């Protein structure tokens, strides 16, 4: 870094003086900004740590005697926030299932496991484990209906299944959209544009409430899976356009070279077109994943108890009503942990893919 080199050369004080105190106005600006930053930092630190009540031992009353944060509400209600309406004695199952899904996602993000076989084992194994842990009914685990699933594991599950169903769907959409047969490409374009023109809420509502009237009973499945399907469709419509943009960035000569070598359509797409398309589409793709993760909270409208809804419930009843800021801060931190890791992973992928670039 340039600044460390500068410090070595000139000494810390000299660098600070030159950078922040080079003139009177600069000096005033620096001092004011620094004071403001220090004040904000101190206020937050005091609220969150020094004056905060961490333990539930004193009950809500202990919180009301201080100006600090009331983390006691988390201490008291963390199970409700993380597990929603899931039966109390079975919480370990929900926690474990959540870890399984996160682990599955992390594993499938590691390049070592990027082969068809490894990925399918990880995903099928991961989803099966999640499903049996959550649903139960075997190995002496009591049956827990999807309606009672909730909290963090539900949020993570909805997100990961949306991505896993939506991603292949988006690739199919993107490929059909560039089909040489005009009626196929136009029809796909129409589907994509229609889905994009509707609010996500309407789509979720349609899939959860309207679809059962249209489909026969055996085909409609649980509401949860219909909602996931709806949100996957929504994800796919946007992601398909992102991938299409990536494909357009791949020079025409790439496909021609593959054709001239006798490589067939499927392999051309998998080995030549998509890897290059994804590279240029990566920033937008990560963006879409982040949006999708945060949009999982919309399933509240269908009556699901994902983490935001269970957070609402955690402060909503009786004695903790004053502590909503703490609950939302806690949930925000959880969101942050997930989304921030996702962004960092995106940055890692970009660096990794850059290797091939000059």
């Amino acid at each position: 870094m340039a600044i460390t080199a500068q410090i070595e050369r000139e000494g810390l004080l000299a660098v600070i003086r030159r950078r922040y105190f080079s003139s009177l106005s600069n000096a005033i600006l620096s001092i004011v900004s620094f004071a403001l930053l220090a004040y904000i930092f101190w206020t937050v630190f005091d609220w969150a740590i020094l004056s905060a009540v961490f333990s539930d031992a004193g009950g809500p009353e202990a919180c009301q005697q201080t100006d600090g944060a009331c983390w006691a509400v988390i201490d008291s209600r963390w199970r409700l926030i993380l597990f929603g309406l899931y039966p109390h004695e079975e919480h370990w199952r929900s926690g474990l299932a959540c870890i399984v899904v996160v682990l599955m996602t992390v594993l499938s993000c590691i390049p070592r496991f990027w082969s068809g076989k490894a990925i399918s084992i990880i995903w099928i194994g991961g989803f099966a484990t999640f499903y049996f842990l959550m649903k139960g009914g075997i190995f002496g685990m009591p049956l827990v209906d999807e309606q009672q699933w909730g909290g963090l594991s539900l949020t993570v599950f909805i997100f990961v299944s949306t991505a896993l169903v939506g991603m292949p769907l988006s690739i199919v959409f993107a490929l059909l959209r560039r089909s040489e047969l005009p009626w196929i490409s136009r029809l796909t374009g129409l589907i994509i544009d229609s889905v994009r023109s509707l609010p996500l809420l309407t789509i979720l509502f349609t899939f959860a409430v309207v679809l059962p009237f249209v489909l026969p009973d055996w085909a409609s499945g649980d509401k949860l899976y219909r909602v996931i399907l709806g949100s996957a469709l929504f994800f796919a419509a946007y992601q398909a356009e992102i991938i299409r943009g990536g494909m357009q960035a791949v020079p025409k000569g790439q496909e021609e070279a593959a054709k001239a070598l006798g490589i067939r359509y499927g392999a051309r797409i998998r080995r030549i077109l998509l890897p290059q398309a994804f590279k240029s589409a990566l920033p937008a793709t990560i963006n879409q994943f982040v949006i999708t993760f945060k949009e999982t909270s919309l399933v509240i409208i269908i009556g699901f108890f994902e983490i935001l809804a269970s957070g609402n419930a955690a402060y909503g009843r009786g004695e903790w009503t004053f502590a909503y800021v703490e609950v939302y801060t806690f949930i925000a931190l959880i969101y942050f942990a997930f989304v921030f890791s996702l962004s960092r992973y995106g940055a890692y992928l970009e660096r990794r893919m850059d290797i091939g670039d000059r």
Partner: protein
Amino acid sequence: MTQSNEPAIVIRGMNKYYEAFHALRDIDLTVEQGERIVICGPSGSGKSTLIRCINRLEEHQSGDIVVLGTSLDDNVANIDGVRREVGMVFQHFNLFPHMTVLENCALAPMLVRKWSRARAEEMAMQYLEKVQIPEQAEKFPGQLSGGQQQRVAIARALSMQPKVLLFDEPTSALDPEMISEVLDVMVSLAKEGMTMLCVTHEMGFARQVADRVIFMDRGEIIEQNAPEEFFGNPQNERTQKFLSQILGH
């Protein structure tokens, strides 16, 4: 597929249109096995389009193209069969930037010829040695110079062990000092008896190795002859004009 004395490529009465534009007019051309042909002509004369029709990167609208005994029509199996046996080298190399040089060369033999990775890479290394860059095998195309990239592209085409090689202005995108390293490789291929069709402006190359030079203008084959005759005694007015333009200075 082919008998030993059968022509490699037969084109009869072929026409090609882009919408209303008549790109190739009544092309008749027979290429014997082992024959080396250089195609030249002003830009927009249809030379590239012609050789791109031979491996069906472009579709022709009428007439016949028979490559190594296989007729090019809408039958996908025929197209695949022809592309397996006909290699192509492009003006802009078109190497796959996300793969190493070795992977570039081994990919098609593995996918199309169904060779094992070990065998495909071994063969690929042989061809990289032939174009004299085996030491670059683990690099990515973006790390190489233009001349090196084009030699890799030739090795990639050779790795499929084609019976015919098409060159589409292989030196036009190169810096002048890199042209000769690519031409050297092409000359050595020609001397080994590879059937070659080269669209190029390198008239020195044409003189040195071509069995026949073809001059095209406005979508037609205007004149074709052995190099000495072609350069020494051009018959058509347009050929004379073209030659005086590119050789005149």
